[in-house]
C-alpha cells in the first residue's frame, strides 16, 4: 500500500481521543493509534474489526478436547487395549482430566498464537518503522490521507507527514 499518512503526537489520552473523534467525523480513516496503555472503547472509535482471537481460542479448545479424547480412546482401546485393574478399556470417566487439560492448553495456545500472528508480533532484531521513535509515554494518532499532503485535518498538535 502506498500513500500518505499523518502522525500526530499528543501528551494526554484525552487529547488523542478528542482528535480521533474529530478526524473520524471529518471522514478521514484512522489507521491506528499508539499508546502506552490500552484505551477503553478504542476499537469502536476507530471502526476496528472484531477481534478473531476469541474464535481462535474456541477452535483451539475444541481441537484440544476432541484431540485429547481421541488420543486417549485410540491408544487405550484401539491401538493396544490392555487390561488395567480389570477396568473397561474405554474408561471414559478417567479420560476427563486429560481431555480437560488439553482443551485448556489448546484454547490458550489458540488465543496466544492468534494474538501474536494477528498482531504481527515476532522476535525482530530491528524494530519496525514507528517502533523506534515511538515515545513510550505519549500518544500517537495515525491518519491516512487520501490525497496529497495538504489535506485539511482537524488536528491541533505537533504532527508530521509520513509516507509509506
Amino acid at each position, binding site marked *: 500500500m502506498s500513500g500518505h499518512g499523518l502522525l500526530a503526537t499528543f501528551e494526554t489520552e484525552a487529547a488523542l481521543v478528542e482528535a480521533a473523534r474529530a478526524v473520524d467525523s471529518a471522514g478521514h480513516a484512522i489507521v491506528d493509534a499508539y499508546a502506552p496503555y490500552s484505551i477503553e472503547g478504542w476499537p469502536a472509535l476507530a471502526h476496528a474489526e472484531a477481534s478473531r482471537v476469541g474464535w481462535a481460542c474456541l477452535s483451539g479448545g475444541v481441537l484440544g478436547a476432541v484431540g485429547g479424547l481421541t488420543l486417549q480412546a485410540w491408544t487405550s482401546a484401539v491401538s493396544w487395549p*490392555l*487390561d*488395567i*485393574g*480389570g*477396568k*473397561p478399556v474405554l*474408561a471414559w470417566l478417567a479420560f476427563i482430566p486429560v481431555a480437560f487439560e488439553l482443551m485448556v492448553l489448546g484454547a490458550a495456545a489458540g488465543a496466544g498464537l492468534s494474538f501474536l500472528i494477528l498482531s504481527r508480533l515476532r522476535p525482530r532484531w530491528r524494530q519496525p518503522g514507528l517502533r523506534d521513535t515511538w515515545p513510550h509515554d505519549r500518544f500517537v494518532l495515525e491518519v491516512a490521507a487520501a490525497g496529497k499532503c495538504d489535506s485539511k485535518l482537524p488536528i491541533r498538535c505537533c504532527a508530521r507527514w509520513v509516507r509509506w
Partner: protein
Amino acid sequence: MFDASTDGPSFEAFWDRSLRDGWTRRSDPAVAALHFDVSQVPSSVPATSRALGTLVLIGYPTVALLDGRQAFNPWLLELPDPVTKVTWESGASVSPATARVLGVSDGDLIRIAPARDAEWASKATADDLTVEVPIVVQPGQHDDVIAVPIGYGQRATQRFAGIGPRWLGADTSDRARVGANIAPLLARARPGEGVAPTPVRVTVVGRRRELARTQDHSWLQASGRDAWGTEASGALIRFAEAGTAPRPTQSETEPGGPDLWPDERQQLGPRWGMAIDLDACTGCSACVVACQVENNTPVVGRDEVRRHREMHWLRIDRYYLERPSGVAVAHQPMTCHQCGHAPCETVCPVLATTRSSDGLNQQIYSRCVGTRYCMNNCPFKVRRFNWFDYAHDERMENLVLNPDVTVRSRGVAEKCTFCVQRIQDARLAARLRGEEPADGDIVPACAQTCAASAITFGDLNDPHSRVRARTGDGRAYTLLEGLNLQPAITYLAMQRRDRSPDDDVDGN
C-alpha cells in the same frame, strides 16, 4: 585335593563327581561345622526364683542357621526369624515383664555374663565370656528366661556383615561380624551335661543397636490408637472359640457390592490362584528363601533391613493374640495377591504393571520408571523397590542366579510373579506335547519347598483343580474383602481350640 576331599574313598568316584558337580568339598578343620546336640537340651526350664538381673540363658538353634553350620549363607542371615522377625542379629529375647523390670526395650544392648555364683566362672574368665547383645522383647516367653540364638558371631560372617549398598548414609558401625557367639557361656555350663540352661547375670549397657527387624506391629488386640489395624487384621486370622467352627470372615467393611463397571472380560483360559492353609503353616520360612533363590532377589544387608527395605517377595506375617491361656502366635504367608481389580495397575502411569490373560498381575521391569505409586496403593504392601543397584559384579556369585528370571536394575518395582517363569515353561512343555498343563504341573518355588504342603497352586477356573476345591473349604476367606480386589490368594483360616489356663502348658 583328593586327599583333602571328603567325597568317598575312590579317586575315580571323586573325579566323576567333581566333574559332574563342578565343585568339590574339602574338609578343613578350621571351618569344620560345629554340630549342636539338641538332644542334650532339657525340655523345660527349671522354675527357680532368681534375684533381679539373674536369668536363665537358653541358647536355641534358629531355623535359618541351625547350630551355626549355615552361618555362611547370606540368604539365611537375612531370613527373618519366624517368631522374633529379627535378621542379621542374635537378639536376646526376654519377656515383656522382664524387659520392664530391666528397663529395656527392643534394641537396648545388654551384657550377659556368667552368674556370680557359678563355681566355674572365675573373675577373669567371666569378663572374657561376657557378650553384648540387643534385647528383643518376646511376648509369651517365660519371665526367668533369656533366650539367645546360637551359631552367630562367627568370624567367617565378617564377609557378609557389611553386605549391602555403599552410600553416604549407610551405617558402617557394626560390620565386624553378625551377632554374638554365646557358645562359650553355654559350653562351660555344668561340665559333662552338655548345653543346659545357664544362670547368667544381665546388665544393661546403656547403648542401643537398632534391630534389623521386618515387622514392627504385631498385636491383634484392640488397644487405643491401633484400634483399626486390629479390626482389619483381627479378621485376617480367626481363632475359633472352643468348639465352634470358624466361619469365613470379613474385613472392616461389607464385601464389595456391585461393580461400577461391567466385568466384560470373561476369562476363557486359566486363572492362576493359590490357597494357603494357615493351619498347616508353621512359619518355618523355607518358602521365603526358596522364593529368594528362585527369583534372584537380592540380599540387601543389615542396614537396609533396618530401613525396612528387605526385598523378600514372600514374607510371613506373624501376629500375636492375647488369649486366656497365654499368647497365641499366628503366621500368615503374604505375597502378591494377583488381584483381579488390582489397585497397583490403575495407578501406574507407564503401563508397567497390567493384568495378563491368565489373571496374573504382571510387572514389567524394563518398562518401570519407578514412581512407587503401585507400592503405595498396594493394600498388602507386597511390592518391593530396588532402592539401589544391588550389584551382581562378582562373576562367581552370578552363577547362583536363575537364568530364567530377569535381574532387576536400580529404580524398578518388583513383586511376586507366582513364578511366572515356571508357569510359562510348564505351559510350553505341555503345548509341545499338544495339551494344556495338568493340575499340579505348575509348582511355584514356595509351594515346592513347603514341607507342610500349606500352599496349593493351580487354576481357579478349572472346576477339578485342587486349589479350586480348597477355595470352597469352610475355612476359606480372602483378605480385605471390602476393597473388592478379587485376589487370587485364598487363606484357610486357622482353627485353634482355645485352651483354658488350667491346661498343661506343654500340651497342645
